């Protein structure tokens, strides 16, 4: 077990093993295990109350788990908290800001609290530039907008340049332009840091993270890349077909094609009906469909293979697990 945290692709910066957290009778996290390699950007995805924040609070040592362990760069968060925490930058769900301080004073406080040794001026200039808060450094945090506060929160996490960044819903409360900026920033940070970020917005995780961990009801229900997640669902090939005609005729046409395993109507707009078809893998399926429909004089308006958005993936994963 000694070299457990190392694997062939690199060193695991974050290693979470069998994490369980119970609040009385409520289980917030249920046997969650995963590890994050150096330089990875991992997204925690899940609906509100899935356990994302709890997991982050345990990883950063704010809460303790009921059972299981967390290590950062090989240091256990409970056994060697000082070493582990030195390597962490954390942006909690609500940025931990003191409204009565100016941004500079606040960063100063964090700098001293973390016992950072780097040259202060140059370091602050750099992180303020990164987080785009240079213009507000002299202002009281109380008077800053939500977007700026969020960015001061990011700057705070960057003080001391820790190798691991844990960001809990970093784009919450930002306007669309700021969201794009925040994504760019996180991608930039991902070049030098190991990042875990959480979100309940799927497109956001998709945009930034190379790897996605899906949590639901405290359990880890998927852990893979965004592409792999779609592959997992695309067991047979699925087609979306839109045709103009009577329902009976369309169904007859569909039934006449051998490679159509199942079909269901998903939408109706006047005479145009949309069907989702599950096909047995076959090269000729599309042409068979075309000829079957043209023989019955039903025009096909659209035929395309279904692309899953993460929304679909997520709903299907949750349902799959629930059935089990």
């Amino acid at each position: 077990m000694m070299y457990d945290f190392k694997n062939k692709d690199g060193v695991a910066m974050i290693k979470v093993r069998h994490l369980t957290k119970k609040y009385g009778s409520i289980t917030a996290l249920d046997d969650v295990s995963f590890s994050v390699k150096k330089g990875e950007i991992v997204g925690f995805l899940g609906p509100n109350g899935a356990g994302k924040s709890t997991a982050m609070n345990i990883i950063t040592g704010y809460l303790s788990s009921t059972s299981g362990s967390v290590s950062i760069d090989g240091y256990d968060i409970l056994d060697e908290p000082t070493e582990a925490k030195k390597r962490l930058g954390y942006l909690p769900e609500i940025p931990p800001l003191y409204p009565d301080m100016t941004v500079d004073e606040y960063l100063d406080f964090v700098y001293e609290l973390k016992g950072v040794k780097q040259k202060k001026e140059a370091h602050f200039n750099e992180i303020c530039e990164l987080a785009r808060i240079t213009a507000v450094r002299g202002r009281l945090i109380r008077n800053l907008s939500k977007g700026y506060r969020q960015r001061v929160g990011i700057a705070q996490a960057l003080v001391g340049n820790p190798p691991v960044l844990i960001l809990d819903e970093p784009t919450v409360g930002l306007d669309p332009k700021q969201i794009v900026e925040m994504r760019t920033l996180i991608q930039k940070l991902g070049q030098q840091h190991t990042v875990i970020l959480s979100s309940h917005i799927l497109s956001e995780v998709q945009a930034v993270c190379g790897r996605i961990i899906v949590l639901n009801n405290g359990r880890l229900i998927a852990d893979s890349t965004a592409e792999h997640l779609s592959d997992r669902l695309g067991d047979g090939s699925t087609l979306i077909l839109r045709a103009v005609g009577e329902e009976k005729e369309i169904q007859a046409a569909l039934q006449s094609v051998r490679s159509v395993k199942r079909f269901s109507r998903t939408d109706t707009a006047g005479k145009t009906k949309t069907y989702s078809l599950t096909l047995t893998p076959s090269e000729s399926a599309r042409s068979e469909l075309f000829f079957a429909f043209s023989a019955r004089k039903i025009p096909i308006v659209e035929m395309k293979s279904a692309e899953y958005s993460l929304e679909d993936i997520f709903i299907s994963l949750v349902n799959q697990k629930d059935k089990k």
Partner: protein
Amino acid sequence: MKAVYKRELSACFRSATGYLFGAIYLFFSAMYFNSVLAGGQSSEFPQIYAGMLNLVLLMLPLLTMRLFSEERKYKTDQILFTSPVGITPLVMGKFLSALTVYFGCTLLTLVYAVVFCFFASPSWPLVIGNIFGATLFGAAFISVGMFISSMTESQFVAAMGSFSIATIFVILDVIPLVTDNALVVALVNNISFVGRYTPFTKGILDFSSITFFVSIAASFIFLTVRVLEKRRWS
């Protein structure tokens, strides 16, 4: 510890709290000084401190109420407890910041001693001994207030909690006046903050009193650490 200490101290004077505390302290201590001055006896000087004790008990919640409750309310405790600093240094930083403000106020009473010089010669050991005693007295009650602040996220609840305890201590001293029961009187005299202070007013550095105040302070600092530690596990 230093970062938290500095931050707390500056926060105290960024808001009105520090000034308010100082103003109330100076106002009432000046009134006691006025009566001492009228007497003109050096031995009466400790009356400034002794007279202030009950007031100090009732005033200290002002300094301690926000120590931890505010951190919890604004979720800023998340940065404290995820930083590479142990809980004990964090608690000590907060405790010492409140003690510093209070100590600063007691030091201001040296001005009275200087003024007193013009009319009589104050006994300097008595003055220094009383400042020392008053600081220990404050330290003990600050730790109690801090402990209460660590248990709630409402400043108001924290203030009322410490205020109630302060009131109990004030009322406690009335009990010996209305009862003859030796046991009750002995018990009250032993746990009364004000009673424990009495030797200082006589210029005695009573070891048991010093131990009393120091152990109260240490116990409640320890309990505060435990409360904060326990919260992580619940």
